């Protein structure tokens, strides 16, 4: 140290300073690095490999769930299941039976976009990604996920078939594809049945009984609803434009394939089985049926079903809140099946994470019961309908023993009403059994033309091939 000259010290200091400047400069280079990653979402090029198959399918299921949460509320408000009590007139429109306004904010801004997303995504998963994965060495591992994806695909196509009059089908992005058209709308059920059938093949190969059960059940539902929609469409087309469409003269469905599927599904189900979608808070958009009903208080269960509290916002606690009685019971008794589902769906404690039932054993029994009734097979009807009643501990009935004025058909409609509550079936029953909802206004389209949801204003604004145009126009059949 003592031999160090001032010049040498200066040189060392300069070297040190130079190194510091270099280090600082290199460090600063990171400031200029423009290849940044996006850690918030998955980029499309990362969607490969069998490892992602399960999550691809989960996402599809959640997307289907989300679309149901967005559509269920508007659907149930059109029917007598839910009624409007809040601030947004879009619900008033629906409550009074104005179902076909493409601008309605619930159907336009929520229902249609989320449903479109789920439908497109179903095609993306089952027709694009899964076939590629099934063609790889990982096919055994992927098979259950592929079958499950086909189940969700069948579900979304069935729901669209049930709830819409027209829709746009495309597997492409960013194009303006034509809408299917009212006349060809049966396509939705055809696709749903096809997806379920393909799913069943995969589930069978994979030896997955649970998936076989659910795929069989969704195919039964799709076939049953297809027959209902065909009836309604025929009645509507038969009525001249501007006149009122009549309810079908023989509304009971006896579709052999649907019944066979329902019976096959029942055989695979435990009594009372239900397939439910259970959302998490992050699953749902800001507006969904659970939040709207149990938190925001825009809507509540309809007056025919419940006795509301003093402020009119919710059912009274417990059985006191159930108004609708079991029509098969000579003593007016709040219907136990309804009491159970209202507890599950429609109290503030349930809030936004309301579970949604898509498939159930009672649904299958009701399909079997309806077919039996349609063919006059009272014994089979009684067996099936009593199986339904047993699930909510209601006493068994015989058709002959029904209270005066109550027919077997009335009982079927009633059991469908309470057991399929908030499962998007009531509106079709309103139409086919000629039972208008309590809040419908005579001049409105629900009463006059038995219409369903239209292609939305937003879709038609961005897709000039979606008909009818301009975007605010409604189809000729529904004016």
């Amino acid at each position: 140290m003592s031999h160090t000259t001032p010049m040498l010290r200066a040189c060392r200091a300069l070297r040190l300073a130079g190194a510091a400047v270099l280090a600082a400069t290199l460090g600063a280079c990171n400031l200029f690095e423009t290849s940044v990653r996006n850690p918030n979402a998955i980029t499309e090029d990362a969607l490969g490999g069998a490892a992602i198959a399960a999550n691809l399918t989960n996402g599809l299921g959640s997307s289907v769930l989300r679309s149901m949460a967005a559509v269920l509320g508007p659907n149930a408000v059109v029917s007598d299941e839910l009624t409007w009590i809040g601030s947004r007139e879009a619900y008033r429109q629906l409550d009074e039976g104005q179902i076909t306004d493409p601008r309605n904010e619930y159907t336009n801004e929520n229902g249609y976009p989320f449903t479109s997303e789920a439908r497109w995504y179903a095609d993306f998963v089952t027709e694009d990604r899964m076939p590629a994965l099934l063609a790889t060495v990982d096919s055994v591992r992927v098979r259950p996920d592929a079958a499950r994806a086909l189940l969700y695909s069948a579900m979304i196509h069935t729901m669209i078939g049930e709830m819409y009059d027209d829709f746009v089908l495309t597997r492409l992005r960013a194009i303006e594809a034509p809408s299917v058209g009212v006349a060809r709308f049966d396509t939705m059920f055809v696709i749903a049945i096809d997806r379920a059938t393909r799913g069943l093949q995969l589930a069978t190969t994979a030896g997955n009984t649970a998936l076989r059960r659910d795929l069989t059940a969704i195919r039964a539902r799709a076939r049953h609803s297809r027959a209902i929609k065909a009836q309604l469409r025929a009645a509507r087309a038969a009525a001249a434009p501007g006149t009122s469409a009549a309810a079908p003269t023989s509304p009971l469905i006896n579709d052999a394939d649907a019944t066979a599927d329902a019976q096959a599904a029942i055989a695979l189900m435990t009594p009372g089985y239900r397939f439910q979608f259970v959302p998490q808070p992050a699953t749902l958009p800001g507006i969904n049926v659970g939040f709207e009903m149990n938190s925001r208080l825009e809507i509540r269960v309809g007056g025919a079903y419940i006795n509301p509290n003093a402020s009119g916002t919710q059912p009274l606690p417990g059985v006191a809140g159930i108004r609708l009685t079991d029509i098969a019971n000579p003593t007016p008794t709040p219907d136990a099946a309804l009491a159970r589902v209202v507890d599950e769906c429609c109290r503030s404690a349930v809030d936004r994470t309301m579970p949604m039932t898509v498939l159930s054993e009672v649904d299958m029994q009701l399909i079997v019961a309806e077919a039996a009734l349609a063919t006059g097979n009272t014994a089979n009807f009684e067996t099936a309908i009593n199986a339904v009643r047993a699930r909510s501990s209601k006493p068994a009935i015989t058709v002959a023993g029904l209270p005066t004025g109550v027919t077997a058909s009335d009982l079927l409609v009633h059991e469908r009403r309470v057991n399929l509550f908030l499962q998007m079936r009531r509106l079709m029953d309103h139409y086919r059994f000629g039972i208008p909802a309590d809040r419908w206004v005579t001049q409105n389209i629900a009463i006059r033309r038995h219409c369903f949801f239209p292609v939305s204003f937003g879709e038609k604004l961005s897709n000039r091939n979606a008909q009818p145009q301009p975007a605010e126009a409604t189809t000729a059949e529904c004016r």
Partner: protein
Amino acid sequence: MRLFVRRSTLVGALAALAAIVTPPTSLAAQATGTIEGKVFDATSQKPLAGAQIGLVGAPYGATSNEAGEYRISGVPARQWQMRLRLIGYTPKTVLITVTGGGTLKQDFPLNPSALSLDRVVVTGTGQQVEVKKLGNTVATVKPPEGALVTSISDVLTGREPGVNALTSGGLTGEGARIRIRGNASLSQSNEPIVFLDGVRINSDGGMLVGTGGGGSPSRIDDIDPTSIDRIEVLKGAAAATLYGSEASNGVIQIFTKKGTQGAPRWNFTLQQDAISWGEGQFFPNSGFARTQADADRLATYWGKPGLQPYQVFENDVFANNFRELGRATTAAAQVTGGGGNIQYFGNLRYQAENGPLGGTDLLNGTGLTAAQDRARRIQAGLNVTWIPMTSLRVTARNSFFNVLNTTPENANNIFGINSLAYMARPEQANCNLSSVRTSGDKPRCLGAGNPFGNQAFMTPREALAQTNELQTNRFNGAFDAVWTPNSELTLNGTFGYDITNQLAVGFSPFGYNVDLLTLTDPNGARNSVTGRTRVLTGDLKAAWNRNFTSSISSSFTTGLQVFNTESVINSTVGTNFPGPGIEVVGAAGSNRDLSESRLLQVTGGYYAQEQVGFNDWVFATIGGRYDFSSAFGANAGGIFMPKVSLSIVPSDRRSWRSTTLSTFRVRAAVGEAGRQPGAFDRFTTFSPLVSGLGPGFAPGQLGNQNLRPEISREYEAGFEAGLFNNRAGFDFSWWRRETRDALVAQQFAFSGGFRNQQLANLGQLTAAGVEIGLKGTPIQKPGMELNLFANAAFLTQKVSSLGGVPPIKVGYVRYRGFIKNADPLGSLYTFRTAPACPSGSATNARGNAMTCYNPSGADPQLPINLNGLRNSNGTLVPATRSQMLAFLANPIDLRVGATRAALAPLVADYEGNGTLSEQRVGDIFPDWTGTFGGSLTLGKQWRINTNFEFRQGYLIQNLTDGFRLSFHPSIGSNRAEWSRIESTLLNPASTAEQRLDAALRFVQNHQRLTPYDGYNMMQSGDFARWRELSVTWTAPERIASRLSARSLAVTFAGRNLLLFTRYPGQDPEINAVGRGAVANPTQLSSPAAAIDQNFLDSIDAFGLPVARRFAITVNWGL
């Protein structure tokens, strides 16, 4: 040995520190002297603070303090050219000689100048440049003397033509949205980018938790307004080219005060404000009884004896229950001083404000805390300038801001205090769940109840128990070194950081449903959000200035700039607490959710500019910038933006003699700047989506690898004229902007799977405007000086092309804005009433016949389409008077849907576009904006300042009255005008004629929401507001010195004193959106959110009016 090394390291460090604070030997050895003096107004003798005094060609300088004094020491002994500049005064240059060890006295008496072409700016120029050399405008805003400004937002409000600071309502802590020359972008933020002392800063807004829109702070307001020296504003692309691909909406650069030489000088400020909503700023709630029993009950409840059925009565629920006198206290201290090598400026300010929202007594006895509108800011900063050698100046600034904002739920929000108060129907009020404690104007229930008559959602008292709080801790600093190796070359490096740490909490406590009405999380809910934003700036530049001949000068600058921005936001949510007292999400029993989002964006650019001067009166500039960014698509590459400008100052020619036209300049500029897409807009993504099924993902964003910045080219031309030795000045600018490759947020068909809008460079926007400024000093004599000013800006904007994309809807269904091809930006569309057609049929814009009604004859037609009747060709049929009288022979009830449907307005297709609901009625952006006012100085002691701000030529969507003055079963329908219509139609005692009059008023003025019409909801917002008034008394020196003060001044000031408007709603400055969080690049945001920020303007939707403010301020200098 280790100990020795440590000690030697310590000694070395101390030596280095000593070297820093001790002047270098070479400087110390040189003979130096000192210059000091005073700067004052030549007429009034009033001392002038903030004057910049410098020696030409050397880093020696000072700024005059509050007493007008300055001091520069350590100046090498020789002859110097000394230059003084102060905005608003004529600059001065003197030749001085400094002697070794001597002190030179040099005072500067200044005369006001209405034009300041010699003022120096640095923003957008690469180096210090006199304004006269620039072909584009650069505005300089000084914090207004005496005016009642509490934030930077206030400093920017109404100062410069074309620069608008838009408040959104009257909640304390509300930050302004800033728009310069309108909107250069459709889908990206239209906020200017903001710099503080050369360093890019976070200029976001928002509370991080949802509150409804109002009371949302701007991060610009973190900065202490008393610490700033000036703000430079570049208004558009012609001026902002050197800032590149984020600058098309202009640049705001804030400069803080720097230290001045001398002994420490302290300045203390104490201020007390009173804030209030005046009488008549709210509209009372109305109702009427339908039966005698109801009337008797309401007469008792509201203390209105003798109330009869159908008699309309009123109670102002908000004003009577939720209004209080707001208060604010400010204490600030500043110190400046230093020697020849080191100067410092330090500031510390504390400001606490509790706004005019009251009603806390409603929660007395519940154990719950009431939401309040509060803001508290603690701001500290230290600026140190170090001049280690003649050629080097190093500046370091560090600031710390601690800010707390609290705000209630508010605005267009069914859980807002004010919205629920506005929705209340006094006829429905009751305390049925307990009993009435008091009655009359301020009813209270003993326990649970519905004291004001709310029909849905929750009671205002329950809303009051929901709180929102945002805590911000922010560290901001700049390190700047300027090296001038010789008289021609200057090298400058700047490094800066801005780190914002935030914690936001939205909280509803357990059991806040005290009135048992709300079912929204009655067991409580909490949303806790933490956010961290870090912005780093690196900026290197070189300037080379040379006079090539005696008549040709050259200034060349080149540089490299990079901004590196990182943002992380974590959010947790939970509801259903097990019991009271819990204030953590972790205790929540259900609906637990968490999210995290991260963003990193890097943008850099190179720039160069050459400016050539001829004989010091003609200046031409050419330059450009090349940008690269992580946000550009993979196929987009970089982007180049050029600029060119010309400035000619004939009055600087030696031959110019006129004192009438004492200054004259013409200028022209054209330049480009950009606005780049968001950090991740280019990627095709699938977003995480979970449910009970497990982890998953769903379509997120369509993606576009061709994305590049949209480019705005701006042309600007204008002139300045100084008259009568610059006692009057006139400034005129015309500009035109063309935005090409405009980023259009295209909504692709939902059938393609992707719901979110996707950006594409498809559109083209055009805008043009005129800016006019007039200043003058009509009276200038000993003891009195009067200065007046007026400025105005005209703006027109149009969507030249949407690139074939269908119209884009703005906001939710009730808002009536669309972005449509070839229409003005911000256009509103709704139904229009059919015209009268007394002499034949009316025709539309395409020359075709359209629906009309004939109001003449024995049985005149009315603009009513009774029962929706159409004739055989489908056109609407007007009802006749006799038909209407027959329809109204008996009472009708507007609560019945069929009745309302029967009374449809007769509407017409004026445009011939076939869509009755989309007739363009105007737009939301004012044609003209401006300010006028003046100042009066009386003697040395008194000074009065005032100004008025106005906006003209725009429409407001009055959604508040859309609800309150039309039918709605659960909210609204509660202003007297509406109640009278409803009661007249329902009252059996009314005649058919009276009902017809009411029905006409209903159809023509109050059919608004059915279902999304917006019919009659668009109203002119034209207004003028008396914005500021201040009266300052400066104590004579003898009084100040008696109080041991160097200076003493007392100011009385007011803000938002009076409003002049024909707008029938609450306040034309209300806006539903507030200062949102969309400001690139520091937060993730969707194009849809940006479109809402840009075009959901002028919406009166349950907001709170702008409050008045009065203050007394004492300034005390030591």
